């Protein structure tokens, strides 16, 4: 199989899966097989591409040419391949989990939700493999439109209101801020390609660089940078499978990889021209990181608590990307991988617990770990990774982040990252501990057989994935080296 074919499969398989799931929604078994099957195909294609990139291979496909010197094109490169692979592999686990959740919960319109999840996966992979800013923008918009129905899925007044807010915030930010930044970049550089070493190098003055950076960071509202973060916290009424897509596998990671690509491939060393705004943004994301972790403490509904926890981790990614150092970029990339594996684990656990017991509040989790040991073991792994406890993936990411901040002379940023880690422990640690240590509640399950294997196995595997960075940290640093080196 050629690299180009694998790239096309990675992009097209989720869309095809979405169409088939919608058309062949009955019987439920067929629907589930289609959903899981296409998720596995997508994961296989992205793994193939990751191996190809590691071996020095390349691939590029151009689908249209809407502007002079600008194509709708997708290509493989280390950062995109890493994000796409992590997203697709975890999405495959998520597909199994989704099939189990919709059956256990008796979810309404399951085929529509599965189709939405597949399209979100397609959008995320499109963002990861985008070859230029225009393709990134198209995939980003497609992701917004694909996930909007997921937020509105419950179809009551509050979910519709949340969906309108979600759509309005993300679309307004992308059209009002990201699009002008793109056009300005085109006017300065004459192209929109993602180039190692930066597209704007030597082409941008200090004022333009500062304004552009602000436009890009706030334009990427999927990153949930305040004040454009409310969409994340009010979309928590969506079903659990949708929340995994939104918070862990598609939407937030798309914002993260977008900022990484812009830092590395659009600005490059020119990021040093934007010192004023980057310092200001560092202060903002540092404070937001701590504030989100603090607010998470006050939330009893686990979906809201996890939303703020994800926001904390997302701000950590932004912190690393804005340091304008190779070490910062590497830290941010590790942080993004850690975020995806940990957040997907935690949200899938929340979905499994609700499907099996109907419980949603943090206080009601006490003792459940004794009845669902595997599930809560995964929860403990995911929590430890989010906190940054060794040897889990989040620890390496936090270590690199703090080191990079200190190297940049921003000790205060390193301190803020540390405080955020402590606060994250405060809102996740006791939860995991009480689940495992406290006496088990009597008769907690909705069904006599407890949690079926399809609710448990994916979360365990996803939790185990948080250990992978322990093994792959060094190989990843070599794999990602082209990110910060000019050709």
């Amino acid at each position, binding site marked *: 199989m050629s690299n180009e074919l694998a790239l096309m499969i990675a992009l097209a398989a989720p869309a095809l899966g979405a169409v088939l799931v919608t058309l062949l929604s009955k019987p439920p078994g067929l629907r589930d097989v289609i959903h899981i099957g296409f998720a596995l195909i997508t994961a296989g294609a992205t793994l193939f591409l990751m191996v190809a990139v590691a071996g020095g291979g390349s691939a590029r496909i151009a689908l249209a040419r*809407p502007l002079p010197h600008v194509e*709708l094109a997708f290509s493989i490169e280390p950062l995109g391949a890493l994000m796409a692979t992590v997203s697709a592999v975890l999405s495959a686990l998520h597909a199994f989990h989704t099939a189990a959740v919709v059956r256990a919960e008796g979810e309404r319109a399951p085929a529509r939700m599965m189709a939405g999840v597949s399209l979100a996966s397609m959008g995320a992979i499109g963002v990861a493999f985008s070859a230029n800013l225009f393709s990134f923008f*198209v995939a980003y918009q497609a992701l917004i439109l694909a996930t909007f129905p997921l937020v509105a899925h419950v179809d009551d007044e509050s979910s519709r209101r949340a969906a309108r807010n979600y759509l309005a915030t993300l679309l307004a930010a992308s*059209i009002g801020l990201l699009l002008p930044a793109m*056009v300005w970049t085109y006017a300065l550089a004459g192209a929109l390609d993602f180039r190692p070493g930066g597209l704007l190098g030597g082409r941008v003055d200090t004022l333009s660089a500062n304004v552009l950076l602000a436009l890009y960071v706030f334009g990427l509202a999927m990153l949930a940078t305040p004040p454009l973060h409310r969409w994340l916290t009010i979309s928590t009424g969506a079903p659990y499978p949708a929340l995994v897509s939104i918070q862990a596998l598609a939407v937030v990671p798309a914002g993260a990889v977008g900022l990484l690509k812009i830092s590395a491939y659009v600005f490059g060393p020119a990021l040093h021209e934007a010192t004023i705004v980057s310092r200001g943004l560092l202060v903002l994301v540092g404070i937001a990181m701590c504030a989100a972790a603090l607010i998470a403490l006050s939330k009893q509904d686990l979906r809201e608590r996890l939303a703020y926890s994800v926001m904390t981790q997302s701000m950590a990614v932004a912190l690393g990307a804005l340091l304008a150092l190779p070490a910062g970029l590497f830290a941010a990339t590790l942080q993004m991988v850690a975020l995806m594996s940990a957040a997907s684990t935690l949200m899938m656990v929340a979905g499994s617990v609700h499907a099996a017991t109907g419980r949603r509040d943090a206080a009601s989790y006490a003792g459940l770990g004794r009845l669902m040991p595997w599930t809560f073991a995964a929860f403990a792994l995911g929590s430890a990774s989010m906190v940054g406890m060794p040897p889990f993936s989040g620890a390496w990411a936090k270590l690199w982040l703090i080191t990079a901040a200190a190297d940049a002379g921003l000790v205060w940023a390193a301190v803020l990252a540390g405080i955020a880690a402590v606060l994250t422990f405060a809102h996740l640690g006791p939860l995991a501990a009480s689940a495992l240590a406290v006496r088990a509640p009597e008769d907690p399950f909705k069904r006599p057989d407890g949690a079926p294997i399809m609710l448990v196995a994916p979360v365990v595997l996803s939790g185990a994935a948080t250990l992978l960075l322990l093994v792959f940290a060094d190989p990843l640093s070599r794999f990602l080296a082209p990110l910060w080196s000019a050709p």
Partner: protein
Amino acid sequence: MLALLELARAHAPLIIIAAPLLGAALCFATPSARATWAVGCVAALVSAVFGVDMIARVAAGAVQPHADEGAPLRLDGVALFAAPLLSVSSVLVFISAAARARTEWGPRAAPFAMALLCAALGGWQAALFANDVAVLILAVETAWLAMAGLIALSARTDRGALSGALRMLMAGGVGAASALLGAGFLHRSIGALDFAALIGAEIATPALASVGVGLIIMAFALKALIAPLHLWSGAAFGRAGGLAALAMGAIGAIGAMAALARIALAALSAPAIADGVAAALAALGALSVVIGSVQAIGARSIKRLVAYATAAQAGCVLMSLALGSPAGVAASLLQMFAQTAAALALLGGAATLGGASSLTALDGLARRAPLASAAMSIGALSLMGAPLTIGFLGRWRLLEAGLGAGWAWTAAAAIFASLAAVFFGGRLIERLYFRRATTTVHQSRDPWRAALAPALIAAIAAIAWGLEPSWLLRSAETASHLGAAP
């Protein structure tokens, strides 16, 4: 035969004007609705074929554009691009009329409606090729009166259409007076009214010339739905029948925008008054964007929504023209194209709703009329400037031209228009796909889907040219370099 064809091609502007005018005359003389529809279709088709052939040959460099000797015609960049656009739009409107003309106008009035449609097309085409300002004004008024008559004929289904037509006539009267006064001042200032005299003229009395040009621009801006001069549009669009509104949106508004572009570009090429004209165009454009966008957000019917969205888009066209550069002219032409496609998709789709035009009639329409909903959604996405639609291309070109000229505020205004379009377009799409039907809509029997064809064709064109716009870009750039001078 070939020699005749070549002769005809060489006189394409004359044929583009004459065909619909001849068609109008024949329609007036024919009592049969079917026969007049056929005549109108043929006339529009002939005009469209010659128009497309003309721009294709010029864009390919096969011929140099020129004015016919002895005829009071002038072929400039705007005419080169807008004439085929208007003719093709007219063909689509006539196709839509196949299913709905008798319902909307009745069997007795339908022949007159076809004649008025042809006359309107002929009038706007004559305005595009007019050699001097006086003929331009005459042609514009002819087209305007025809459009007002078309709206008035809709009174068969809604008496309120008479009110809309009356407002059009009153506005048109004010506009005509303003234009004639402006022409008088212009003639006093430069001694002639032909475009050749205005372009690059050394004007001894720039203040008088500026006032004259300003009055003419205001008159045409009123007809092009530029806010705040568009006060007639709410009643006219809102109470007009589906076909009449479609003709207004796809032909009338675009024809007026193109006529405005001609006079604006001619004025911008006169050094003595260029700066003042540019400032006035830019200010008016920005105002139109803001007012039109806000009104579109509050619109309660699809026709009014399109009218106000057209005002916002017309503002973007004005701002593009004000830049005075070939990039700005190209951006304005692309936006006219995008607006035409969006209007056809939205109004064409809405025309299948029978007489209903309220936004609540769109609730849950996707289940009952998926094709119409898809067409309207694509039209809305194009208005938003969604990527891979033609609307994105027009918006991008304006942003690029504005930032390139250092006019960052034009970029801000264009972004505002897009954001507002996200709001009202998004609300429209939400109604179509995410709400349950709350009203019963009677959809007319139309086995051939003729009423829907223009909307679908326009929607497909909006996507196709968004994906592969090279020919369109080349045409716009060719036209922009022609500018006001052939």
